[in-house]
């Protein structure tokens, strides 16, 4: 430990920083880290009151009371509701009150209330090779793989600890040797939609668990396809980093480390089977899009497909505040509303209290959303954006 770190641990920078550094040191012990490393950015999960409950809220308030303040840029994952239009979502008043208290605690800590799982689409973009502390498994996958920044799969408390101390324990994906692939995935399926990439991620995560995949045959995925792929493989497995030949920035350097690795093939049949797992007959599903949060391009695509239709309030699209304001200017939000669709910020179908909102059946293009909504007791169907929006007149 450096002198500054010792001093912080001793309480020279207040009781909150001391306790939070103790947490990072304990995790360093667990994972055999030799030292701490400065981090330049934090993205904090554990924001929805649905997951935090009074227990988590109590801890957050205590940290704010003890003087915890972010010393590096720190953004927030989605909350359980649109902070403005929660009534329109059907969120109960009591839940809204809890959620407001969560946000207030974070704001006292100097954390930006971005409430998105795609901070990289909302102006929070770390540099290649930079050490960061991000939670939210899909954002971890995107920042590690697509941006080439370095983070482990952090949790709510550890990202708060890193935000307040500016430090993280040096282990795992922060080190070169652990960023090498552990398996080669040959893709033999046609990846022509974002849903297909999501399915590929879901199949890969199921087979590989936490092993780092090196994909061959990914084609030229859009940003949206890359965010869908990572989100799905972080959900079915615990993948925090993937490499894609000709796609991700570290892939070229990994070519020398592929010999002798486990190889697996993902075929069109595997993708179809993954889709079929979620495709049950539904009566009147709510179409839920935006997991991870929709980009401006996705909102544009949806707006272009819904013209002349009336979804009667049963099309829900989730995005960040940042993208929303640009989509509003571009006319996409107005077009979706005119077709009886809704666009919400700050939240999504994974962290909102769906049961309390009366949801029972959902159709989506995201395997991550499908996975979590199924575990919440929703009947779920998977389809491409075109299929989902075309299926309903």
């Amino acid at each position, binding site marked *: 430990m450096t002198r500054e770190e010792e001093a912080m641990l001793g309480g020279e920078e207040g009781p909150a920083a001391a306790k939070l550094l103790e947490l990072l040191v304990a995790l360093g012990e667990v994972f055999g880290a030799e030292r701490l490393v400065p981090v330049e950015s934090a993205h904090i*999960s554990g924001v929805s009151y649905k997951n935090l409950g009074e227990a*988590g809220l109590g801890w957050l308030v205590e940290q704010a009371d003890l003087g915890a303040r972010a010393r590096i840029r720190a953004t927030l994952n989605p909350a359980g509701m649109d902070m403005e239009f929660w009534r329109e979502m059907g969120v109960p008043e009591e839940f809204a009150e809890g959620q407001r208290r969560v946000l207030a605690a974070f704001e006292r800590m100097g954390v930006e209330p971005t409430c998105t799982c795609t901070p990289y689409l909302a102006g929070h973009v770390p540099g290649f090779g930079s050490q960061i502390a991000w939670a939210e498994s899909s954002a971890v996958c995107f920042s590690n793989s697509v941006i080439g920044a370095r983070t482990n799969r952090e949790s709510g408390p550890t990202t708060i600890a890193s935000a307040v101390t500016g430090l993280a324990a040096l282990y795992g994906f922060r080190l070169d040797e652990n960023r090498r692939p552990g398996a080669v995935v040959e893709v033999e399926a046609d990846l022509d939609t974002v849903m297909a990439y999501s399915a590929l991620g879901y199949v890969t995560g199921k087979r590989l668990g936490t092993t780092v995949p090196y994909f061959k045959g990914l084609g030229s995925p859009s940003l949206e396809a890359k965010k869908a792929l990572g989100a799905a493989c972080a959900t079915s497995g615990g993948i925090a980093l993937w490499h894609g030949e000709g796609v991700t920035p570290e892939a070229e350097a990994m070519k020398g480390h592929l010999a002798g690795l486990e190889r697996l093939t993902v075929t069109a049949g595997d993708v179809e089977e993954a889709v079929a797992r979620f495709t049950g007959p539904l009566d009147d599903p709510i179409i839920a899009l935006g997991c991870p949060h929709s980009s401006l391009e996705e909102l544009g695509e949806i707006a272009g497909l819904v013209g002349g239709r009336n979804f009667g309030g049963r099309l829900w699209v989730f995005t960040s505040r940042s993208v929303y304001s640009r989509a509003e200017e571009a006319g996409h939000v107005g077009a979706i509303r005119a077709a009886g669709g809704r666009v919400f910020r700050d939240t999504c179908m994974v962290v909102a209290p769906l049961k309390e909102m009366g949801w029972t059946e959902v159709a989506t293009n995201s395997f991550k959303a499908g996975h979590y909504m199924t575990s919440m007791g929703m009947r779920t169907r998977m389809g491409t954006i075109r299929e989902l929006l075309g299926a309903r007149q």
Partner: protein
Amino acid sequence: MIIRGRKIVGGRTEGVALVSRDPVSFYGGIDPVTGVVTEPGHAVEGECVTGKVFVFPTGKGSTVGSYVIYRMAKLGTAPAAIVNLETEAILATGCVISDVPLVDRIGEEAFKGLESGMVLKVDADAGTVEVVEG
């Protein structure tokens, strides 16, 4: 008998052991209000962890489990200490933020020798677990 392990979260305490051969998820697996293990089919389902030296192989489940340990500490239903074969991030985080002593790497042999009902003295600062009675 003194068992040597690894200190993760310091502190000293003495209590009756509750030994589970199954991994434990605090989120969804334990009722924080009563301290009772509720996971169906779990090795110690129906047992109360409150005030016990809770011995189990490792943690599992959602990272929200860290906050559940914290809530139990505030409610007074938390274990007195946790002893693992190999701990992980959720438990380590929960124990640090709740000041619950945590020791791991006590070794397979020692783990097999521990049984519910034994009285254990945990000196997490030294990374030791002593069987006082039983």
